[in-house]
């Protein structure tokens, strides 16, 4: 009898074992923007869950998409900006992540719980949001700069040759469109030509086009002006106090990045576990303190550093809110136009 019991138990164990192993894969492949997640937080997630996180990075939505569409990347979690989320849903590149049923869903602050690109939060969960503006060194400026894109597109002599633009064709095109008073999604060839001419006139004054290493480039004084995301500015300013941030009056980009699970992900449960982990106020606060960007989680405010709370570049003052334009999905005709402009600029 006992022998038979042992036999049965062993058989059951053997049968159960493979299924168990499958359910508990201990890996997570995270594909995120460069310098956008505190390593200490990933360590803590690993310690709490026993899941090993592998981090890989990209510097534009487009290059992330290119890598996903090439196939076989095996990423479990990527962090696209709103319009890109919409496009990925439309193209059938995403798996539903059921963020609404997660325990920490309740922490998402309105209006981020019902964004235009994914109204029911079926596919995506918010991470950070921020703005694109101009960061410059007040120690270099001979007088106070105006709050216009003009300062970077038609720079004063002291900034010529010392300014950097993001190597993100969407951001550069949008900034030029705002300055010239065009729609940022324009597909009008004449407006495209005007944007190209503006960028070509600016080019001799540009030292480098780059969307990675921006914090260090500003902090080291390698450039005196940078088209910059506000969190990068915040982190650079901590090292170089004379830096200042401009919300251009012609309008600028307000963007929000989101966690999504791409099709082809192998560790879906772990990805969901990670999303829920990041919706926790404590973790979101820690991430904000590292990235310098605002998050969307209620209850994380108290955990933010004083410097972050006090920075008007991060906590946009009410009178600047009108200048922010939520980024949206542009039609394909616009993507073609801005690509043409970008290539001709660099020819």
């Amino acid at each position, binding site marked *: 009898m006992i022998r038979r019991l042992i036999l049965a138990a062993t058989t059951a164990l053997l049968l159960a074992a493979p299924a168990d192993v499958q359910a508990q894969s201990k890996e997570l492949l995270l594909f995120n923007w460069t310098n956008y997640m505190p390593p200490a937080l990933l360590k803590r997630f690993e310690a709490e869950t026993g899941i090993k996180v592998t981090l890989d990075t990209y510097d*534009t939505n*487009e*290059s992330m*998409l*290119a890598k996903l*569409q*090439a196939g076989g990347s095996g990423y479990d979690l990527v962090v696209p900006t709103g319009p890109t989320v919409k*496009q990925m849903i*439309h*193209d059938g590149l995403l798996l539903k992540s059921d963020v609404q049923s997660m325990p920490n869903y309740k922490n998402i602050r309105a209006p981020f719980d019902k964004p235009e690109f994914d109204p029911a939060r079926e596919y995506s969960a918010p991470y950070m949001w921020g703005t694109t503006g101009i960061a410059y060194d007040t120690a270099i400026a001979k007088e106070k700069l105006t709050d216009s894109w003009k300062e970077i597109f038609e720079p004063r002599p002291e900034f010529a*040759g010392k300014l950097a633009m993001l*190597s993100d*064709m969407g951001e550069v095109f949008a900034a030029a469109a705002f300055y010239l008073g065009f729609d940022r999604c324009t597909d009008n*060839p004449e407006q495209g030509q005007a944007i190209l001419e503006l960028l070509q006139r600016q*080019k001799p004054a*540009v*030292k*480098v*086009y*780059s969307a990675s290493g921006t914090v260090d480039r500003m902090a*080291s*004084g*390698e450039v005196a002006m940078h088209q910059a995301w506000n969190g990068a500015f915040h982190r650079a300013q901590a090292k170089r106090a004379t830096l200042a941030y401009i919300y251009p009056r012609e309008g600028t980009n307000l963007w929000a990045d989101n966690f999504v699970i791409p099709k082809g992900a192998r560790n879906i449960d772990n990805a969901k576990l990670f999303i829920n982990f990041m919706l926790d106020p404590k973790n979101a606060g820690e991430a904000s303190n590292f990235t310098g960007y605002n998050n969307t989680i209620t209850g994380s405010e108290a955990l933010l550093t004083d410097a972050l709370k006090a920075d008007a570049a991060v906590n946009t003052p009410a009178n600047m809110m009108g200048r922010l334009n939520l980024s949206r999905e542009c039609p*394909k005709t616009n993507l073609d136009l801005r*690509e*043409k402009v970008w*290539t*001709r600029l*660099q*020819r």
Partner: protein
Amino acid sequence: MKPALRRAVLLGPATLWIGLFLVLPLTLMAYVSTLERGPSGGVLWDRHSADAYLQFLFERDLMDRLVLNTDYLHIFARSILLAGVTTLLTLAVGFPTALWMAFQSERLRLVLVFVVTVPFWTNILVRNYAWMLILRTGGTLDWLLTALHLPGPPLEILYTPWATGIGLTYSFLPYMILPIFVSLEKIDRRLIEAAYDLGADRWRVLARVILPLTAPGLAGGAILVFIPGLGAFISPELLGGAKSMMIGGLIQQQFGQSRNWPFGAALAFVLLAMVLLALWAHALRYRRERADE
């Protein structure tokens, strides 16, 4: 074993290798270059179009007419120029280095060859980042010049074509030194002694004896530097500040940000065709010279 079978078996591995790693990928790329681009990246596998090749020279204007577009020709011309300059620079630095190396004692020669190949042990990306730290404003070079009380700093070299040139020359130098060194090493030393005995001075020995005998090494080095130089991507991107595109960056952009695979594949084939034509022309000339002798 029958001779025919024997031949098949012996040729098998090499054929398989070439087929699997050369012909198959190239055929796939050639096929992709004739396809239509997918609406949001990728390709439509069943829709053919010559758009990718037309796009290299033409674009559609407002009236939907095809007009000449020289953007890509500019980028190709710049790449050829920069690859050419890199070849000349590596030659200028590489030939004297190889000459000096070849006339050392055998033990020292081994050590020197080893030293030349040391940079290969680290990733090219890391080496380019190192150059960024050296060349950037307030970087190592500026610091050194200041410490030595020399005029100059800040030099502002990083993110200029100079920086790209320095990066490319540095990256490709070993490819120039090694083939030249091999040619030099093989020269019969008695020929040089004979030239001296017959009254030639150092320059004449170099010009009339050493240089002609190292011609194959020089040609090999030039090809090994020029062709990869055409497709160089990392140095222009990191050290040149991504201001002026090169062929490598253009192709990378088509498969990356622009997600235009057919055009990227077509560009790669235009480049391949140009390189093959150049090599063919070189081979023809070489053969004719041989025939003249």
